[in-house]
């Protein structure tokens, strides 16, 4: 290939695109019937799948914000792909709609009348349906506006290479960073901590954030490798970029463990019934096995395997780690969501997988559409040459 291909050619996808659409439709049809027969299972399975993909998309937004906020050089070449991942937040906003119909099954506080539970009454101003939905609308409005706007400016820059887009995106970022932190924290509190309205943890937002940043970095590694495999990014992305992404994967593996342990230890040590209820459920019966697997698989295995230097410079090795960490992130979200329904122990339902397939295939199909819309990397970013010449 003499001329470097800068835009995605759909010959790599071909008929598989229609296959994805068909799979998404089939999976949605299946969970629609599943929802009719077992609405509770559907509600929780769908929330699990939704959260898994939602965290990944939000991670994309997080990495763009970090990129602009610290004026990063290395990440210029991978930024367009982060923007593509973040632009899926629009799809996530639409995919949130099914949860509206099963909300009282998920968030029990919605069906408890006032005056019955003093602990709920104390939280009354926050846990009110109208405020809850207003917040959800606000989160999605912010996520969609921020991700779309940053991506649009980045694409505009491909045409004339004017540095003012970089400067303007930085300004958007400075306004977005605090909002991002607030929206991520409170969406995690509303949708996940709210599954048990008695329980609370002050580290909940940052715990979900740790998995968010980690999982989207893994998706980025897989995405870049797939595109390289198809013949793109030839002299743009080198092993130095893989090394950096591997370091970030390692860093957030440790960060996840640090936050997860801090949350656990404080609750375990203080031993207040209102707080321990979360871990009591997850550390007893068959949930105990999954929680232990999480500690080993989400921290010790990637920690030891990502610690040595050479692996981070081998795309195949790093992709293996990325797939593993994504599976562990899935398990993490599973152990967060499903124990709220199956209190007595693990009950795996076919709908868990069907919901993953439905949302996953939908996102993959829309993502493929997005991939071809714009060049694969910011062609005329002022920092592109420095980014290509990255040295660790």
């Amino acid at each position, binding site marked *: 290939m003499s001329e470097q291909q800068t835009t995605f050619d759909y010959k790599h996808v071909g008929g598989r695109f229609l296959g994805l659409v068909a799979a998404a439709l089939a999976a949605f049809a299946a969970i629609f019937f599943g929802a009719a027969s077992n609405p509770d299972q559907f509600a929780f399975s769908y929330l699990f799948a939704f959260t898994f993909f939602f965290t990944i998309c939000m991670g994309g937004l997080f990495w763009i914000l970090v990129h602009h906020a610290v004026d990063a050089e290395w990440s210029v070449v991978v930024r367009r792909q982060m923007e593509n991942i973040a632009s899926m937040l629009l799809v996530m906003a639409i995919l949130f709609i099914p949860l509206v119909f099963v909300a009282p099954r998920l968030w029990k506080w919605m069906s408890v009348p006032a005056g019955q539970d003093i602990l709920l009454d104390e939280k009354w101003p926050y846990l009110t349906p109208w405020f809850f939905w207003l917040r959800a609308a606000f989160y999605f409005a912010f996520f969609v506006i921020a991700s779309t706007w940053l991506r649009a400016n980045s694409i505009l820059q491909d045409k004339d290479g004017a540095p003012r887009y970089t400067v303007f995106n930085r300004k958007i970022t400075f306004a977005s960073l605090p909002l991002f932190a607030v929206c991520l924290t409170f969406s995690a509190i509303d949708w996940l901590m709210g599954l048990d309205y008695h329980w609370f943890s002050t580290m909940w937002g940052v715990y979900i954030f740790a998995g968010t940043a980690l999982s989207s970095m893994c998706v980025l590694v897989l995405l870049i490798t797939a595109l390289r495999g198809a013949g793109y990014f030839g002299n743009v992305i080198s092993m130095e970029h893989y090394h950096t992404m591997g370091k970030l994967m390692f860093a957030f593996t440790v960060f996840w463990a640090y936050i997860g342990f801090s949350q656990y*230890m404080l609750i375990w040590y203080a031993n207040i019934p209102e707080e321990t209820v979360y871990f009591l459920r997850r550390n007893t019966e068959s949930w105990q096995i999954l929680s232990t697997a999480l500690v080993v698989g989400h921290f010790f295995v990637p920690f030891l395997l990502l610690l040595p230097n050479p692996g981070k410079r081998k795309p195949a090795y790093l992709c293996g780690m990325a797939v593993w960490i994504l599976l562990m992130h899935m398990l993490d979200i599973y152990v967060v969501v499903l124990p709220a329904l199956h209190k007595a122990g693990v009950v795996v339902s076919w709908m868990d997988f069907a919901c993953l397939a439905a949302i996953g295939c939908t996102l993959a199909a829309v993502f493929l559409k997005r991939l071809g819309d714009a060049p694969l990397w910011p062609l005329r970013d002022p920092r592109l040459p420095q980014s290509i010449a990255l*040295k660790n």
Partner: protein
Amino acid sequence: MKNSAGNPEAPVFGVAAEFQCARDLYHAAEKIRDAGFRRWDVFSPFPIHGMDEAMGMKRSLLGKIVFLGGLTGFLTAVTLEFGPTSFLYPLIVAGKPTNLFTVPAFFPIMFELTILISAFTAVFGMLIMNGLPRLNHALFNWDRFKKVTEDKFFVAIEAGDPKFSERSVRDFLESLGGTNITTIHGD
């Protein structure tokens, strides 16, 4: 008349040359590396990216030493916590077990000691491996070398190098484009 610095009676420390910019220094380093010299160093007012590679330096041993330091800290914490609390004088605090399941309470100390000893090993190991702190260096006998903190770049090939001979090294540095080539004496 050849340039020299320091006490001419004292043994020769090495031969040094001055370069005008980082790029010249970088390319000179590559050529010195390829010529097979071992005991030599470059000096610049700021860190130069990729200089390690240009000088042909291997990965430092320090990382492995720091790992051992971290392991020492970790094992110290494990011993000092489980030893007394689980074996020598089991003491039940807040209804918590005194066996292996009490590890969450001990974990912060294990973590902190691992980090502390690793950090100490890294800092002091780095100082020792660099031969620091030292009071003086033969290169300070050379007045021009003071410019290294401003805008000049230097290379010094030491007399301890097996391939060192004053005359050939002087010619070699000159062929690389070095200026003010000076023989440095110790004192």
